């Protein structure tokens, strides 16, 4: 609670912060403990802890299903990240640079659509996609997420700050609009695109409700949906469940560690609410 930076942090401060961490990281720690405990020991009554083993992970991968779910998660998250970044950037570019009638009105509509929560359109969208025969395919997850109002808004804000002289100079040299986008605006927007790309990827990796509704057979499940159905099995095998949870959380933790700088700076600049 002191703002003097040079002073050594008080023990009380560290104690409070560490206690908070223990509470929030506690469940994750327990997940790891359970995942790495021998399933036979977990079956004891009450469960015994302390005998470590990788058996839960062997069982997890033995079924082979989790690899398919992971692949589905990877495909959808990657496709959505790539598609959304491109489409958002293109739209943001035309909103920022374009001079056409109805530009602000259209932008306002895009902004307003941010307010529509996904649950409203869930049912009509499901009916719509099932008319197209897309239910139970990864397309059902990918297509609706290929553009996002918030992303368009973010990137436009960023592009607005790029000096106009650059595009004017390029036009003098005979560059078309697509060239200006490709050679000036897209590369210059890389910082915001990278940050939002990471956020899109994480959000899609963790997406649950919409994949739960549209993906209906085991072969098409993404990881969260697959894990949720694992939890529904008749006999609760918590060692296996926690191994699955660990495996699903791991890539996100790795991404976080690799890009934590980007992520935290992105948060600071309000890249994501």
């Amino acid at each position, binding site marked *: *609670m*002191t703002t003097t*930076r040079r002073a050594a942090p008080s023990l009380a*401060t560290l104690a*409070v912060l560490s206690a908070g*961490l223990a509470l*929030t*990281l506690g*469940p*994750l720690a327990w*997940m790891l403990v359970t995942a790495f405990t021998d399933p036979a020991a977990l079956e004891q009554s*009450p*469960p015994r802890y302390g005998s470590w083993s990788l058996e839960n992970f062997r069982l997890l991968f033995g079924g082979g299903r989790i690899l398919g779910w992971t692949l589905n998660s990877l*495909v959808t998250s990657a*496709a959505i990240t*790539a598609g959304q970044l*491109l489409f958002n950037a*293109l*739209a943001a570019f035309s*909103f920022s640079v*374009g*001079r056409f009638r109805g530009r602000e009105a259209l932008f306002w509509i*895009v902004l307003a*659509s941010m*307010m*529509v929560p996904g*649950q*409203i359109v869930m*049912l*009509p*969208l499901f009916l*719509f*996609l099932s*008319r197209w025969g897309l239910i*139970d395919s*990864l397309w059902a997850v990918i*297509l609706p997420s*290929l*553009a996002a109002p918030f992303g368009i808004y973010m990137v436009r*804000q960023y592009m607005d700050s790029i000096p106009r002289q650059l595009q004017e100079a390029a036009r003098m040299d005979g560059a*078309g609009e*697509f060239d200006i986008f490709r050679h000036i605006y897209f590369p210059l927007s890389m910082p915001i695109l990278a940050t939002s790309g990471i956020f899109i990827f994480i959000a899609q990796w*963790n997406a*649950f409700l919409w994949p739960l*509704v549209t993906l*209906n057979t*085991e072969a098409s499940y993404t990881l969260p949906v697959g*894990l*949720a*159905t694992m939890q*529904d099995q*008749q006999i609760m095998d918590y060692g296996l469940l926690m191994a699955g949870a660990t495996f699903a959380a791991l890539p*996100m933790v790795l991404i*976080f560690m690799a890009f*934590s700088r980007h*992520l*935290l700076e992105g*948060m600071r*600049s*309000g890249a994501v609410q």
Partner: protein
Amino acid sequence: MNAIDNTPADRNVIFFTPKSAGGTGCRLTRGIALLVLLLMLVCAGRASAVEIEIWDYPRWLEPGETIDRFAWMKKQIRAFEAENPGIRVRLTELTWNRGDEKLKIAALGGRFPDIAPGTVPLLFIREGLIEPMDAYLEPGDREDYLPGALDAYTVDGKLYGWPWYMGGQLLFVNRSTFASAGVDLPPNGRWTPETFVEKLTRVKAWQQGRDGQFPLGIYFQKNETANFPFILQFGGTWPGMEAAGGAEAVDITSGIEWLRGLIDRGLIPADSGGRQSNDIWTAFARERRIAAGAFGLWGIKALTDKYPMDFELMHFPAPAGRPSGSFLGISGLYLFHRDDPVRMKAAVKFARYITGAARQRDLVRYTQFPTRRSAGNIYAGNRHMTRAWEILQEGRTVPTDARWPQMDEEIEQAVQNALLGRVSAPTAVREAGHRISALMDRHQGSVTGDIRSGSLFGKAFLWLFPIVLAAALCARQAHLLMLLPAVTVLGLFLVYPLLDAFLLAFRDYRLGEVGGFTLGNFRRVFSDTKFVQACWNTGLYTLVVVSVNTATALIAASLIHALSGRLKSIYRALYYLPGVASVVVISMVWRWLFNTEVGLFNTVLRAVGLPAVGWLTNPDVAFVSVLLTGILRSPGGAILIYLAALGNIPKSLYEAADLEGASPLQRWWHITVPLLKQTTMFLLITGAIDGMQVFAQVLMLTDGGPGSATEVIVHRVYTAAFRDFDFGLSSAMALLLFAGILTVTLLQRRFGGQTEMELA
């Protein structure tokens, strides 16, 4: 899957280099050529064989298998394909509980297999999706089936499936516990309610002083009929269906009151109304804290292999002369209608093959009974299965009505609430009766009809959309062209469904497929007690979790801000870390921690001699547990936003305070907190918008139960749409949620908008 991999990259190429048309064209042609080649290959493969698809649930483990519960089916498929070279069978693996829900959603969405497993599919039959099998029966088939087997698949005189096996739910008793307590079991397996209670009381007396031990455990939850014989033992019929059955609803009331009596005597756990089959099974088979319970026939196998126990199967208690009335079910395979007669025939052939007498003999590993006489008595010499067969002779089945799942849910919930003492048994039964009657009056229209017909708005939109696109293209405006992809996606997948949602919410199902316009859905929303409960819970969740999270974020951020260098970045990162794990993962861990029988919390409580808590099973505690998971989720994002705001506070403001000798706490409270007001407002409002959409935690932790104690709005919207297929009701509730979120968003524009712009 390959197509999905490739497409975005291809599009990149197309959009990035419109000028270098040669290169793009070249790649495009190559791509198309490859696609055509692939298609030809696939078609060539198809032409030689009929392919049929079967979806199946996990079954038993074949000897030597440790994990693959589909190994038997795969073996049969291989054998069948060898015998029938012209037919190829593709297997799609379903999962147990949610598999049924998934099958329904997929089938109504038009994505159905040729063959699916389960009891008679009344919903699909009503929708006209199932092919009658009468024409495919061969001479002798009818005589070969055991009595009742074909009846179970007969609706309006037509046969809709191939009966495979018969299962049931029976009362399991731990013989060693009863023996230790000096209580003998009636040798013929029958007991009247009086002797039953008397014996349980003696077991209880022996268990006295051991925490969490009970002579009997019961559970009432969706799709679990196992314990219904207890409430039906005095006769009677289901509430709301008196017209059909003719008896008085008072009778099931007396069954519920009898169970309440067991709670009062401590013979069953006090939170019995909230317990789930998993809990009771763990307590019975693994922990041995409960001496008797009702489970499916699968329990026989599990108590032989996995948790070896000296057990006995008993009749459910019933007054002398009445049948004990266990619930039994006939399961089999049914076929979806296809216009292709060759494919249809192939599917029938495979269904016959799987459910034939030879394959039915393998059921011995599944502890289920064959439905064909020619399979013979596969359980000769098996004491438990022989007893089970005797008991099931007095068995009964659930009503044959496509709306049974919803009726079941109402009944289960009435029983839960009555057992939990929230309402009296007569009131619970009466209210459930009203709701079930209302249910029976509704839903005359076809769900698939609705799906296929589309909506007025939708059609208008789909016509208008290409025109707008064409206009944009004709305008030869590069910027419009570049807007196209995003606008198309948002238009098709956001605006159009939104318009549709309005239509659905104002449509009436009683008028059939075309649908008149009505406000009835909104009236039903407010008489839906689950929705009202959901609104309270959602409000409470938003209020508690958002305010606590914002407060902790403020405190944590202030503390972290005071740190410096490495320590600061480490704490900042660690506080953000849990945020990258999905809610599903976190909820799974919480559910494990909260587990009544073997979870960490109750294990610790028991170890220090305190009574266990029904974290997710006691309706008074369950929602607090849900709140707890929300509160203990680190508000990492909010902390970072606070840190950014703290960094913007000029140091000079504090220097003045220092001169006046203010303590750190005073400076924080009088300077820092007021200066952060804008940020706080912003976080509260965005937090509230998120909080109102809480869903995944609830689905994973409690699925809205026990009763409707943890129901939240989005969960109710989801269940109304995809479990009850009541599209009007679901859309009406979704619109109300939208209105709520819109209000809060407008508040944000009014009070918090500035901060958002600043941060952005």
